[in-house]
C-alpha cells in the first residue's frame, strides 16, 4: 500500500529534477519574481511591508495553479496513467505520492524561500514565524485540492482554464486564513486561531482529497 506512495513520490521528484535540471530552481524562480515586485508596485518599504504577506500568498497560489495540471497530464499522455489505473493496488496512495511530490517542488520551496522574500519585501519581524508556518500548511492544502481538479480535467485536453475555474473557489478559504495568520501576527494579535483552522483544513484535505482524486481519475479517464 504505502509503497505505492513512496514509489510515486520518488519518481515524480526525479522527473521534476530532470526537467528543471536543478533541484534549487523553484526557489530561485520565486526569488527572481520577488525582485520584480518592488519594481512594479512600489520600492517604499513601509508600503511593501503592508502587502508582503498577501503578495507571497498570491505567488503561492499562482505557482500552484499554473503547475498543478501537469500532475496527471504528462502521465496521461505517455500512457503511465493507464498503467497506474490498471494496477491492482489502491489508487489513492500513488495519487497522494504524486501530490506530495508536487508540493515538494512548489509549496515547499516557496515556504523555505519565504523568509528571504520577507526580507526583500520588508516584512516586519514578528511576521516571519507565522508566515512560514501558515505557508507550510496552506500550500499543502493548495496542492491537495488542486489534485482533485487536475484529476477531474485530465482527459479533457483543454485543461488550463477549466481547472482554474474548478479549484479557484476552493482555494479562497486557504488564502484568507493564510494571509490572516500573518496579518494578525503583524498587527499584534494572536495568530494561533487561523493557523489552527489551516491545520484542520490540511488534515481534512489529506484524508479526503486523494480519495476524491482517485475516484475522479477512474471516472474521467475512461474513454
Amino acid at each position, binding site marked *: 500500500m504505502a509503497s505505492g506512495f513512496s*514509489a510515486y513520490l*520518488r*519518481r515524480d521528484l*526525479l*522527473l521534476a529534477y*530532470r*526537467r528543471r535540471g536543478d533541484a534549487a530552481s523553484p526557489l530561485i524562480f520565486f526569488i527572481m519574481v520577488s525582485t520584480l515586485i518592488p519594481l512594479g508596485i512600489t520600492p517604499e518599504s513601509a508600503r511593501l511591508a503592508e502587502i508582503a504577506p498577501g503578495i507571497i500568498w498570491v505567488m503561492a497560489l499562482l505557482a500552484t495553479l499554473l503547475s498543478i495540471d501537469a500532475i496527471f497530464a504528462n502521465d496521461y*499522455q*505517455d*500512457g*503511465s496513467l*493507464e*498503467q497506474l*489505473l*490498471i*494496477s*491492482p493496488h489502491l489508487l489513492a496512495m500513488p495519487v497522494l505520492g504524486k501530490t506530495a511530490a508536487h508540493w515538494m517542488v512548489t509549496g515547499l520551496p516557496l515556504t523555505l524561500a519565504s523568509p528571504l522574500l520577507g526580507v526583500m519585501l520588508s516584512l516586519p519581524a514578528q511576521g516571519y514565524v507565522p508566515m512560514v508556518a501558515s505557508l507550510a500548511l496552506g500550500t499543502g492544502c493548495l496542492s491537495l485540492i488542486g489534485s482533485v481538479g487536475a484529476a477531474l480535467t485530465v482527459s479533457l485536453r483543454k485543461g488550463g482554464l477549466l481547472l482554474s475555474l474548478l479549484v479557484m473557489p476552493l482555494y479562497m478559504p486557504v488564502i484568507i486564513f493564510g494571509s490572516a495568520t500573518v496579518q494578525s501576527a503583524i498587527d499584534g494579535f494572536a495568530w494561533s486561531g487561523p493557523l489552527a483552522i489551516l491545520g484542520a483544513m490540511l488534515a481534512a484535505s489529506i484524508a479526503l482529497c486523494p480519495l476524491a482524486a482517485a475516484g475522479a481519475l477512474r471516472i474521467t*479517464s*475512461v*474513454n
Partner: protein
Amino acid sequence: MPKLSLLTVEQLCFERDDRHTFEPIDFAVDRGEIMQVEGPNGSGKTTLLRLLTTALQPSSGAIIYAGQPITLCRYEYLSDILYLGHQSAVKMNLTAAENLRWMATGGIDSTRDALSAVQLSGYDDVPCYNLSAGQQRRVALARLFMTNAKLWFLDEPFTAIDKQGVSLLENCLREHVKRGGAVVLSTHQDLAIDGLRKTSCVPHADQGAL
C-alpha cells in the same frame, strides 16, 4: 462439461457516444496459447485490449477469468495481467534503467538483465530521449523480461523493432506460453509462431466509412 479456459470473452460490445465500435466478440484463450487480434486500422483492436485490461468498461458482454467474471475477481485479475499499449509509458527524461527500476518488482539486477535481454546493455544510463525509436520501444518491451504476470496484452509490440528484435520477441512469447502463460496481441505483421491462434475485430456497421 467444457474445459475451463483461462480467459473467455463472451459477446463483448463497446459503445462510444451510442455508437458500437465493433461487432460482438467471442473468443477464449487458454494457458499456453497466443491469440492474435486482427483487423484493419480503426477496427477496434486497441479498444478491445483496453477493455480486457479494465481500462474501459464494456457496454455489454462478459470477460471471464478462470471461471469468474473479472468484475468479481478484480484484484486477482489485475495482479495477473500485463498491458503494453501504443503509448509505452516510457518517460523520455529518465534513463532506460530508471524507467525500468520503478516498474520493477525485483531488484536492480533484474533491471540490468532485462535491458540486456532487449539488447540495450550499455544504454542503462542514457536518457531515453537520446535513444532511437526502436531503442525506446525496446525499453518498454524490457518489462516482459521482469514480470510474473500470466496474461499479457500487447498492442502492436513490434512497432519500430528491427527483424532481429522481432524474432527475439517471438522467442520471448514462446517461452512465456511454455511456462504456462497466455498472450493476446495485436499486430499487422505476420508472426512466425507455431500454433498461433487468430481472432478478428470487425468494425461495426454503425461506424462511418473506412
